[in-house]
């Protein structure tokens, strides 16, 4: 057995072992079904929602919100990051503000977005875009700033035009570090979209979870929770895979 397979087996053992203990505790009546659904019941509910319910439709809404937020954050983030690098004074002036904004609890401002965009996916997309925007701006600016000066000197010695310099030297040099910002942004957008859907009760999977909790449908709450966790994990896995593909 390879080392990787052994570690995976151990991880699965821990995950399924914990679920088995919970299942046994609920079935034996040690924990009331009023608080905790048996994992098997939650899995069946999730499956029924996927096949007969509207879970797929809700997942599609969540994915669309994530995609739109990422698109907006990428377009404006890369542009703003480039401009902050190009205009050094602006870069030095606003970088601390951006970092401060990023570490502050701006998600609490979501009612402002509900007032502006109404109780709709647009509000979720608008606020989540901001979450994605900041790491992309900071990473893009830093990526341009950290381009090896020798590369630029080589370009200058070859009499490259500004356009050629950008296309053949700057762009290839900044692409991998910008991707790290993109990865970070996607993680934040995912958290923000699912969290906002839940608290504001709009959109997709998060809204489903909120509805189930509101109706005190315990099995559906756990099914929604499983769905949300699965979606988050799947996203992180895909991001990690694509990052390793790009880097290799």
């Amino acid at each position: 057995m390879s080392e990787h397979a052994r570690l995976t087996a151990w991880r699965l053992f821990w995950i399924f072992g914990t679920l088995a203990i919970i299942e046994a505790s609920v079935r034996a009546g040690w924990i009331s079904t009023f608080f905790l659904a048996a994992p098997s019941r939650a899995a069946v509910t999730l499956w029924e929602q996927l096949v007969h319910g509207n879970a797929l439709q809700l997942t599609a809404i969540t994915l669309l919100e994530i995609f739109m937020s990422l698109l907006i954050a990428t377009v404006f983030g890369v542009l703003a990051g480039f401009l902050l690098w190009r205009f050094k004074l602006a870069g030095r002036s606003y970088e601390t503000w951006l970092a401060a904004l990023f570490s502050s609890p701006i998600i609490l401002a979501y009612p402002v977005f509900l007032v502006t965009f109404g109780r709709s996916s647009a509000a979720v997309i608008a606020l989540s875009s901001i979450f994605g925007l900041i790491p992309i701006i900071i990473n893009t600016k830093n990526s341009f700033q950290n381009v090896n000066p020798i590369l630029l000197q080589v370009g200058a010695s070859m009499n490259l035009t500004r356009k050629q310099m950008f296309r053949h030297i700057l762009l290839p040099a900044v692409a991998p570090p910008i991707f790290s910002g993109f990865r970070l942004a996607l993680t934040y957008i995912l958290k923000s979209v699912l969290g906002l859907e839940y608290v504001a009760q709009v959109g997709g999977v998060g809204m489903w979870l909120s509805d189930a909790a509101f109706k005190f449908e315990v099995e559906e709450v756990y099914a929604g929770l499983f769905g949300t966790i699965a979606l988050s994990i799947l996203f992180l896995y895909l991001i990690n895979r694509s990052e390793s593909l790009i880097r290799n």
Partner: protein
Amino acid sequence: MAARQNSLQARIRTPWVMQASSLLLFIVGWEIIGRTGLLFPDLFPSIFEIFQSLWTYISTPLMLPHIQASLYEIGGALALASILGIPLGILWGSRRNWLEIVEPLILYAAVVPKIVIFPVFILFLGIGVHSKLAVGAIAAFFPIALLTIAGMRDVKKVYVDVARTIGATPLQIAIRVYLPAIAGQVFAGIRIGLGAAVTGALLAETKIAKAGLGFMIVEYYAQFRIADMYSLLLFILILAAVTNWVMKSLFARLSPASRVNPDASMYF
């Protein structure tokens, strides 16, 4: 003449001047939009109205019960997350084979938005302060545990070997070698954990609560008291920034190594 002009230009072209002028421009722009109703009427109340409301929060006991409720949740969350996160981080970080199994699971779990676990906490703990405390605690747990693990990983093996050679007991090694070596990362974890606890607890308050600053934001939103809502948001941001600064300065004094990894907060 030209030299004096250049020196003046250099003095004007500083980040501080740019920041101040941007802020001034923002305030003037906001006020114009608000007074003319050019964009989203009612969404841009006068800046003076916002500051007047902010002054009320600071100078009167109006917000005191809500501040107390939120502080209880945040403080409790941070304490609980530290009590669990630091020992677990030390335990996982000290056993390489355990860490290899556990670390990816923690990293994946860290990505899940913690607020979605709130309905489970409501089922177990009710809608009082304890369910919010639990959300804050689980949000703060991950940065604290992960940075403790990072700290443990950075401890040079040679320090431990030297301690063993001179006959130090496991407890002495833990107190004299590990703790000082990981203090910087642990403090950084606690500081970032505080931010996560604030966001987790207050966001949960906006969902369902009987008191707290997050609860008041949604109350003002429901009553369409936009100026009050903005001022409360500003109040929370100021409170969070001041607390963060105090912790940063305190930890920098206690352990200069806590200055490392300034961007760590971006990863949680």
